[in-house]
């Protein structure tokens, strides 16, 4: 920049105008070797304002990067991909409204989006009514299996259950007493219901399980942390399983540090704390606290290195972190590209049919395969927080774990299965009654 001759303000303005006009005129013309033809539109449904923007804005960026990379590679079916970005503003009804707009006005081939389970639940009827395709990239509570959704985040058996197994193992400290602490909404409540059933099946007594919910944005954790401390003084190794949502985590961890709870005494296993959340914390008092994910930025594979390099280049920021839902979008987008290429069309029914069975290498050296229940296979990693704000992987599953839509540990769903291939073609098939209970779980 400095080597350029000085430009007058007016000339600069003219230049910017021309440049933006060129950009508006269409991405196709700007690049010589770019794909031609009518663009294939995809929808990006992530909040860019409001409380969830902190997590979701990144996912919008990673989608734009993936589309950009694909277009450089020649697009899809010889046509360019055009992202349609909408902002549901962290507002549940607006999610449904924007989803409807994407499907019926913009006629997108598929949608990548949603963050909280509430947002997914509110767009679900729209996708089923208009027969759209949604790729959902976040770990969630399971107990759902829609034909129109591909769940590229973790189901409970791909995050929560292995995490508990680790805590109960020798390396994890052999915990026998569990405090389940969460924010009061659908994901923690359902996850904790599954975990309680699972812990009981492992012989943990009711009196050794403590469950506590707090409102969104809880900032005063004094009472709860001291309760956990008292709960941990029963002579058995105690662990905390945290489903605390986003922002409330910082004051929670600060209070843990202030009350002197260290990871060696009472480890905290978190399901919603990733690299992005740690960016705002002084992690020195947190060293050794745990998180369970299917991806960590620190995992050293060539694919991950290349992805991080692309990300830094695309965002022009060498400090931007990567995280688990970003990898889920990476997998989901590439699977969709494969499915469209296999089907030779973007027709929703044909793409949905082509998806099952596809395999896509993930960023950590494994393979993500699409299962008949529209979930994918994922490896599970347990990471310990380091003082540099990254996670150090201390344990991992030997193979990828196939995602389970319905939990076998909840009596009502124990004999349900999802299978969107012939002949069953049903999201909640009752294996005992040999009957489909309808398209969706009520």
């Amino acid at each position, binding site marked *: 920049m400095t080597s350029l001759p000085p430009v007058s303000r007016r000339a600069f303005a003219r230049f910017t105008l021309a440049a933006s006009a060129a950009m508006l005129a269409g991405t196709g013309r700007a690049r010589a070797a770019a794909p031609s033809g009518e663009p294939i539109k995809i929808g990006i449904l992530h909040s860019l304002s409001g*409380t969830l*923007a*902190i997590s979701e*804005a990144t996912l919008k960026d990673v989608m734009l990067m993936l589309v950009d990379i694909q277009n450089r590679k020649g697009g899809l079916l010889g046509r360019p991909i055009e992202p349609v970005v909408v902002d549901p503003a962290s507002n549940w009804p607006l999610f449904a409204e924007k989803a409807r707009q994407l499907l019926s006005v913009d006629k997108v081939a598929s949608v990548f989006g949603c963050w909280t389970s509430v947002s997914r639940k509110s767009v679900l009827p729209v996708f089923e009514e208009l027969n759209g395709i949604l790729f959902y990239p976040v770990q969630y509570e399971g107990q759902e299996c829609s034909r129109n959704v591909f769940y590229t985040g973790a189901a409970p058996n791909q995050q929560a259950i292995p995490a508990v197994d680790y805590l109960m193992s*020798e*390396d*994890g*400290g052999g915990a026998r007493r569990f405090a389940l602490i969460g924010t*009061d909404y659908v994901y923690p409540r359902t996850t904790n219901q599954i975990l309680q059933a699972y812990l009981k099946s492992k012989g943990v007594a009711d009196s050794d399980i403590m469950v*506590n*919910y*707090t*409102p969104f*944005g*809880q*900032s*005063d954790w*004094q*009472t*709860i942390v*001291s*309760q956990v*401390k*008292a709960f*941990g*003084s*029963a*002579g*058995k190794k105690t662990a905390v399983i945290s489903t605390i949502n986003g*922002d409330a*985590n*910082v*004051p929670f961890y*600060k*209070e843990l*540090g*202030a*009350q*002197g709870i260290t*990871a*060696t005494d009472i*480890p905290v296993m978190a399901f919603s704390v990733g690299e*992005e*959340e740690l*960016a*705002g*914390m*002084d992690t020195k*008092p947190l060293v*050794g606290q*745990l998180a369970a994910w299917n991806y960590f930025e620190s995992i050293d594979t060539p694919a991950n290195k290349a992805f991080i390099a692309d990300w830094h280049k695309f965002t022009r920021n060498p400090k931007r972190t990567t995280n688990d839902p970003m990898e889920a979008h990476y997998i989901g987008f590439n699977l969709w590209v494969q499915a469209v290429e296999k089907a030779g069309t973007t027709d929703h029914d044909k793409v949905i049919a082509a998806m099952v069975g596809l395999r896509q290498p993930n960023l950590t050296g494994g393979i993500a395969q699409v299962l008949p229940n529209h979930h994918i296979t994922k490896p599970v990693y347990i990471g*310990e927080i380091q*003082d540099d704000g990254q996670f*150090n992987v*201390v344990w991992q599953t030997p193979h990828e774990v196939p995602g389970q839509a319905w939990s076998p540990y909840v009596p009502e769903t124990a004999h349900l299965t999802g299978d969107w291939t012939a002949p069953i073609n049903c999201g909640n098939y009752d294996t005992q009654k040999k009957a489909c209970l309808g398209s969706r779980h009520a």
Partner: protein
Amino acid sequence: MRKAGLAFTLCLALVLGSPCAPAGAQEATPDPYAQLASPHFDAIIAGIEALGRSGDDKALATLQALGAHKLMAGSEGVYIHAGTGLVDARTGQQNADIDPASLHPVRVNNRVRLVLATARAELLLAQGSRAEKHDALSRMLTHPDASMLPALDHASADPANKSLRSEFEAARAAILLSPGAPPVALNEQLTAVSAIKKTGGLGARSLLTRAAALEALAPQTREAAKKAVASIDFRLRLWSYAQDLFYGVSLSSVLLLSAMGLAITFGVMGVINMAHGELMMVGAYTTFVVERLIASYIPALSPFSLILALPAAFVVSGGLGILIERGVIRFLYGRPLETLLASWGVSLILQQAVRSVFGPSNVAVTTPGWLGGAFALGGLEITTVRLAIFLFAIAVMAALMLVLRRTPLGLHMRAVTQNRRMAALMGIRTARIDALTFGLGSGIAGLAGVAVSQIDNVSPNLGQGYIIDSFLVVVFGGVGNLWGSLAAALALGLGGKGLEPLIGAVSGKILLLVLVILFIQRHPRGMFPMRGRGIES
């Protein structure tokens, strides 16, 4: 099988460096320093335990380095990252020809950390200073391990350790009551129970609960342990009421601090200031910036950057407040709905501005060492940072009272709010007073932001979490009355923390809000309404 696998992996780890021929010799007595370099936690733990038993001073240095994340593993052993270069942990010699890029930190997990702390305590008991020995003994008291008993007995026989006798006894008692301890006579067991009971607190409760369920102990001992737990529980329950009181007071002080600025802008001036939370957020970000600047330019002052952030936040938020008043609010006096919308707009602008400058993620504000941690006061556990916020809230309140009651500015402020026309006729420049009053309220919001940055996350959304509570405090206490705000903050804080242990955080909050609504219906002007002629209009 496991041993063979271990030797094999060691061999793998070494394969790049030395040939694997002496593997057989290694299997017989594994070299603890080589074990530390293993990628397997089992080998690392075995290495640490061996070093702990060795009683060697190089072993202590190695373990200290591991605890400080300064131990690097290479293909031929482990190296300590000293200030000047790499030191071979086994020999203590400087090693210049090793390439730092070929090394990686020794792997650590929570299990390794536990074993490490135990081994370190064992070594310090033999070689440490008196303070280190004291720490080692309290570590043994909270994490007793039967394997430590010989080292403990050996050290306690040393006449130099006479001054630590009671600590030695307590640590020994804890070990005798833990699983795997050697069997001892009944009366020794009972003495151990009463020694542990004397130490009190959650740690003793944990030890005794475990002892009460331990088959290896005599039935009488287990009975005594059970009784001791019951008596500790009773004592803890009494203390827990006092603890809840402290939590309540602490929450009240946060509420008061965040509401005090609003008590000026909304309470005294009558401006429905929706940007109040964002002024706090700006204060918190000022703390962040000050901390960064000091860390990079005057690192010696780093521990006190929080104190330096106080005037900075007051000036930045206060100045911003004056700007908002001069730029927006002053055109809207007497039009509360427009003020509400305009100040809400300002709050969105501030949020987005901060998001654009600092990014949407949280920023890390560190808590200085002197504010971290907690101390015990009887059975009470007082977290230092909460205590500091409590004292700070009192100080700010006192200072504010002083300004309002004892300075010409305060006199003019009260005159203008009570009767604007009369004050103007007396020659007070009301417009200037308006700006200063708004600036004062905003500056106090900035101070609250500094305090809040120590307990909450500093993100563009910070203000959103406090605005509702702040309005609640001011309205509930009675608009225009600082003492009312104090009473309301106390009522809400104590009420909230009193209900939380009984019915949970969510239901507690709901019940509290219902009670406030009922109260406001009965007394629409809050607990301590202002009276006076000027107020009615």
